[in-house]
């Protein structure tokens, strides 16, 4: 999977959990999930669970703590895919 494909796949997942007042266009690589995309902590868990299914990886609590932005998520996905 190319970097762009991973990004698009992640975008699709994040889109599901965006609050109604945040547009899909607001999702950028540097977007902060909680502060900029207004995703709450419960929905951030849903995103992680969907990411696990979509990429067939398992995240740990430390990964969750580090996953602040879309870019952070992409890096964690890469790290997990390399290790698997």
């Amino acid at each position: 999977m190319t970097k762009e494909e991973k990004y698009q796949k992640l975008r699709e997942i994040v889109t599901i959990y965006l609050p109604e007042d945040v547009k899909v266009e607001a999702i950028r690589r540097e977007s902060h999930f909680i502060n900029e995309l207004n995703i709450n902590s419960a929905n951030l868990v849903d995103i992680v669970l969907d990411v696990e299914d979509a990429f067939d990886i398992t995240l740990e609590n430390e990964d969750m703590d580090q996953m602040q932005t879309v870019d952070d998520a992409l890096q964690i996905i890469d790290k997990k895919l390399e290790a698997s």
Partner: protein
Amino acid sequence: MNFQDILANLPYAKPFLFVDELVDLNEEGAEGLFTFRKNSDFYQGHFKGHPVTPGVLLTECCAQIGLVCLGIYLLQQQQVFISGLQIGMSSSEMDFLLPVYPGERVRVISEKSYFRFNKLKCKVKMYNESGALVCKGVLSGMIKAMGDE
């Protein structure tokens, strides 16, 4: 397993405690009982002259037994020391099938869907004393022991 210990850790008090007794707790779910007190204030207004337990309180009862008691148990199983709790319900999707009248005792059974990254999601069912299904649904919430950063 000490159920009293779980009840002691609940962050609720009268008049907003909706758990009397825990019957079962395990990795996969919880079961508990609560009797809606006949003389509760809210019956005076819900409804005027026709007291019925509000659906929000049935939901709350399901959440306290099914999510919070189970969540405390699961945290304890992970050897987390609990000095306090940060909790919040994040979603509820309930169907209400039968009315619950003042003085009725209900049984709540919850079944864990997952508990990950401090989010607990459960299927819950509430039964009345004759064993009929009163309400059912899916609840989720965040539950975290305080000081556990």
